[in-house]
């Protein structure tokens, strides 16, 4: 099973917290689409297995016209073996999702929408410099729910001045609209973002970790009440609505990343395209992949397995660890986990090492402790 990720590096304006790769100038959009199409062709032999998921991410893929999206979907189908009923996701921003656009999208092979709602409140949206407002967020979501079955929304918590009450309201609006999947993240200060700069200058308040932690707790509790399963730290889905594409990242499956800044993984090495639109286009036009590659060592692969495994409900299969890395490594892992097992921060169930409710907030530090480094 394999996936294809297609990065669309354009946005209408920059959200203050965002460190993804995108440009706010749409001048070279056409050239970019062509180049992405060419890269898809250039790399058609890289995937050994059938394509089961396709994901348009960004940036803002909903900025593309239906024709442009159709053009790329067609290229995928012409060059890759796609299974009967693939999961095809499009990330979309509420301001792009007019009724007409949603209908057009529903007529393509795209069968899943990931809507960048972030919040249903105007002051939060303004704080983050999102293009859309609360009304558009609700309106587009209602409309999308009408035409698509498989929908996920992004929600951000831990935003300064967002009370627990307001965060609950955010969640409740989503529950009332009956969205089947939520990806929810704490607002994070990434280097070289406007947000980081504002905080440094004192224009914005520093983020409050305690607040984020309370919100996370509310998120876990409330979503459970509404029959969501937290299948990954930040991902909550109803039965049958888990993201297949993202799950493949956490389960170490192969994927092809197309477009500037996109990452690929073939089981042995990770590679990534240059994060620069002009350089990307130039290189692809010369039939060259603008790539850097890193071959993973055994330790790297072990550490990644631990890191991603701990974040999901599937945990870390001890049998798989033994198969892939040998019995000594498996024993070392169990040995290193002892203290956490004793404190009920980790548990072993059905041959899987899992994080408990208590440990979820601390997953990174725990993963680091279980790493093998030299």
């Amino acid at each position, binding site marked *: 099973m394999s996936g294809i*990720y297609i990065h669309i590096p354009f946005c209408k304006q920059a959200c203050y917290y965002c460190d993804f790769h995108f440009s706010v100038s749409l001048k070279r959009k056409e050239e970019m689409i062509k180049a992405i199409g060419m890269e898809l062709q250039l790399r058609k032999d890289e995937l050994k297995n059938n394509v089961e998921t396709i994901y348009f991410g960004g940036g803002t893929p909903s900025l593309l016209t239906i024709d442009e999206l159709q053009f790329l979907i067609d290229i995928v189908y012409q060059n890759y073996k796609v299974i009967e009923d693939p999961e095809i996701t499009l990330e979309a921003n509420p301001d792009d999702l007019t009724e007409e656009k949603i209908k057009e999208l529903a007529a393509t092979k795209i069968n899943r929408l990931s809507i960048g709602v972030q919040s249903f409140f105007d002051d939060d949206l303004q704080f983050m410099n999102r293009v859309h407002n609360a009304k558009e967020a609700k309106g587009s979501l209602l409309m999308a729910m009408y035409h698509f079955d498989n929908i996920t929304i992004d929600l951000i918590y831990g935003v300064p001045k967002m009370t627990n009450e307001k965060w609950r309201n955010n969640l409740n609006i989503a529950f009332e609209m009956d969205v089947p999947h939520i990806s*929810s*993240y*704490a607002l*994070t200060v990434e280097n070289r973002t406007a947000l980081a700069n504002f905080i440094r200058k004192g224009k914005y308040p520093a983020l409050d*970790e*305690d607040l*984020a*932690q309370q919100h*996370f707790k509310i998120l876990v509790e409330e979503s459970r009440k509404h029959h969501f399963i937290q299948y*990954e*730290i*930040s991902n909550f889905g109803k039965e049958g609505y888990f993201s297949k594409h*993202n799950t493949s*990242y*956490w389960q170490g499956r192969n*994927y092809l*990343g197309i477009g500037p*800044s*996109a*990452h*690929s*993984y073939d089981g042995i090495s*990770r590679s*990534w395209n240059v994060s620069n639109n002009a350089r990307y286009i130039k290189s692809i036009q010369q039939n060259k992949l603008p790539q850097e590659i*890193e071959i993973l060592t055994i330790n*790297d692969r072990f*550490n*990644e397995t631990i*890191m*991603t495994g701990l*974040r999901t409900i599937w945990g870390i299969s001890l049998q798989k660890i033994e198969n892939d890395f040998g019995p000594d490594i498996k024993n070392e892992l169990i040995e290193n986990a002892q203290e956490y097992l004793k404190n009920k921060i980790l548990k072993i169930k059905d041959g899987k090492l899992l994080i408990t409710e208590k440990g*979820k*907030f*601390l*997953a*990174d*530090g725990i*993963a*680091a*402790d279980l*790493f093998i*480094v030299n």
Partner: protein
Amino acid sequence: MKNIRNFSIIAHIDHGKSTLADRLLELTNTITNREKQDQLLDTMDLERERGITIKSHAVQMEYTYKGEVYILNLIDTPGHVDFSYEVSRSIAACEGALLIVDAAQSIQAQTISNLYLALENDLEIIPILNKVDLPSANPEEVTDDIVDLLGCDPEEIIHASGKTGFGVEEILEAIIERIPAPKGDVNAPLQALIFDSVYNSYRGVETYFRVFNGDIKKGQHIKFVATGNDYFADEVGTLKLNQIPRKSIKAGDVGYLITGIKTASEIKVGDTITDADNPTKNMVEGFEDVKPMVFAGIYPVDTEDYEELRSSMEKLKLNDASLVFVPESSAALGFGFRCGFLGMLHLEIIQERLEREFDMTVITTVPNVSYHAFTNKKPNEIILVNNPSDLPEPSTLNRVEEPFIKASIITKSEFVGPVMSLCIEKRGEITHQTYLTTERVELNFDMPLSEIVFDFYDRLKTVSKGYASFDYHPIGLRESKLVRVDILLNGQLVDALSALLHTDNAYGIGKKICEKLRKLIPRQQFDIPIQAAIGAKIIARETIKALRKDVTAKCYGGDITRKRKLLEKQKKGKKRMRQVGNVQIPQQAFMAVLKLND
């Protein structure tokens, strides 16, 4: 002998000694083009990386002048105050010295202190105005400064640039013309001074010497006067870029000796070598032993590595005889060593060498100087306090004496105010203020040595915007009021964090230590109180809040590698921490008190 010249290159730090040495080596064809590299004599990795000289380095050159071949023995010396003993050793082997002065920076603190060392040994001084190629060079004014300092004629000062090679021929000429040839009697009994020793893992200890009388021959039965040990000279030779074995080294010349000695401590630098059967009556006047100025505990991060640390330290000592250490133990850290260092740079270098050369990750505890304590019971008996835990109970304490230094600071007149405030804050007492020019002032202070250990250099740099140079020498002990401030983490005393402080500073510094530790100790899954205490009395308190959220939200395709690397780094950091009770303490927290104002 009349064609030998022995000289050292001395200067303030970074004024260009080693670079000028490069040019001398090139012009005399001592090195080939292929061997050329910047600061060639700085052979240690650490020297090359930091761009400073740590150890003196002797090398022999040949130069033909007016049809005659001369042997020039050059010794490049370090400029940093911690290593000034290297300068005094080198000087003892020479008749002359090149005094290098940076044409932009003019005379600085070590220019003066190293000059005095040379003058005490009656060396002929050749003043060199270096780096004249710099756009910021100020030759007229600096010439005046030098004339003022040396009382020489302006014409005696050679203008040069180690960078461009300008003036280097003139320097060689001056070395031959102005520095006297060595005097001595080749037929007298052997009398040679050991001025350095270097450890080589294949050849054992190499001894560098200067022959004053007689000669030293391969195979000769020799004796070291001070230690009384006798050896056979397995190999003698001259120090070119590589060692060149010779049959003998005669009076006036410099050379190396290999005797099969395996431990550096067996050799006392400053000792006299003589013939075992026909000994000289006179020892060469040597120099004082190097005395450690700063003491700190060194412990392995992993208690199991104690034996390995011991053997690493012993090996280090083989080529750094100024390092001294004795075993000690700490309730918090287990077994380790109390070590004496020449200064804070020396301490840093030892710690770094242990890491690189021996792969030993160590914890260095709060450094302190060496105090003398006296109890009421025996008010005349010195108790040496090299470790905070050595300080007797306050109730039994009669008095404490702490080492003082005479500090010399040269700075621009505009910074006199801030520099003075700093020194007074550091319990200094001004003794002299001399205007070297209208712009530049030399300030002298009597100051407790302990104050320069704590955060002095960095602050001096800050208050003077980098325009201050500093030099010091010890002037004995004075009575003082001292207390031990203990630190408790999670209610448990961590002896390795205790510090000896002057009573007047104890509250303020205790509070700052707590604040600093709060920032340095990573949050853990529970609250950690930090307290500073004098005896049973708590004088400051901080809390490290428990870590409750430690998970990054997103982890998709591109995040995986980045996040893995981040966590791997975190894990490596943890490996370097020391667990005391249930608190993980990072290596640098133990030195935190040194940088309280960051």
